[in-house]
């Protein structure tokens, strides 16, 4: 139990800088989702199932999903802008 806690804490400590340092938002979505899962795992190991459940739904699914939608929206805006530029 003790060992598991240490391992998951170290995993959090390693992945957090990983998410920060993945500078491209597209790959950040992947790392963030992974990080969210590790956090959820940490909550389970620390006996917090309620929080783990909301972390899986929010941190590992909803938040990355919103970022994906944001990126999609932005890509479409940029494409549209380029098309308009070409037309001119």
């Amino acid at each position, binding site marked *: 139990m003790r060992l598991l806690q240490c391992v998951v804490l170290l995993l959090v400590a390693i992945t957090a800088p990983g998410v920060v340092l993945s500078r491209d938002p597209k790959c950040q979505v992947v790392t963030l989702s992974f990080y969210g899962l590790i956090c959820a795992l940490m909550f389970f190991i620390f006996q917090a199932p*309620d929080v783990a*459940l909301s972390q899986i739904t929010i941190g590992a699914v*909803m938040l990355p999903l*919103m970022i994906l*939608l944001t990126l*999609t929206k932005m890509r*479409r805006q940029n*494409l*549209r802008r380029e098309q308009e530029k070409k037309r001119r």
Partner: protein
Amino acid sequence: MSSRQRTTLFLIAVAGLAPLFAWGFRNLPPMGDYRGPYGYAVTQVAVYERHATDVVNAINYDYRGFDTLGEEFILFASILGVLLLFRPSGDDHKGKKQAQVEDALPVSDTLRVGMQAMAGTMVIFGLYIAAHGQLTPGGGFQGGVILATVPLVVYLSGDVKTFEAIVSNPLTKLAECGGAGGYAIIGALAMLGGAHFLTNFLPLGQTGDLFSSGTIAVISVTVGVEVTGGFLVLMRSYLREIIEERLQGEE
């Protein structure tokens, strides 16, 4: 400031902050050795007083239910904010005709059937989680988020029309606003009997039953309704343009 100057400034700050944290955290109780009065007291009394076996939810929806009321309105306010930011402006309608950006994923039939089956399972799972807040881990919030992802699965399976039918239904809006307002109204109802705001006024039932714990269960479900509606509204405002284009394309 150039980005190098900024980083230098920040690193100086870190050179101060890191020892500061080390200095303060040294005096924390060692992990695993915690004996605060609040946690002890609440685990002793919550089951007897409120007939709820999940103490976390007893705190969330009753002892500190007023915090959760604020929290639900944080969600509500930020959804209002997103709606405000994404409100259609005059330029939008011009832009729609000018450029069509198609990015629909091709979905195979097997995948579609699989996803629709998954959606069904998720509805049941979400309802279960939302309804058993007072008994087992989970509760309105978690169940609501799961329920809100169901139409999204439908969307991903390529069925845009059904998705749009669900999210643009006035019932979704009613769920969002009714859930948020309903929470406050439940709190106010307690005052009819002369008690303070957010006091339990329902029979407590048998500990462990689905219909137990009085207002905790009711509030949990109310929160679930709000969260489901809220995230659907949120989703719709993000996907609005894409959906409009897709539906036009299908016609």
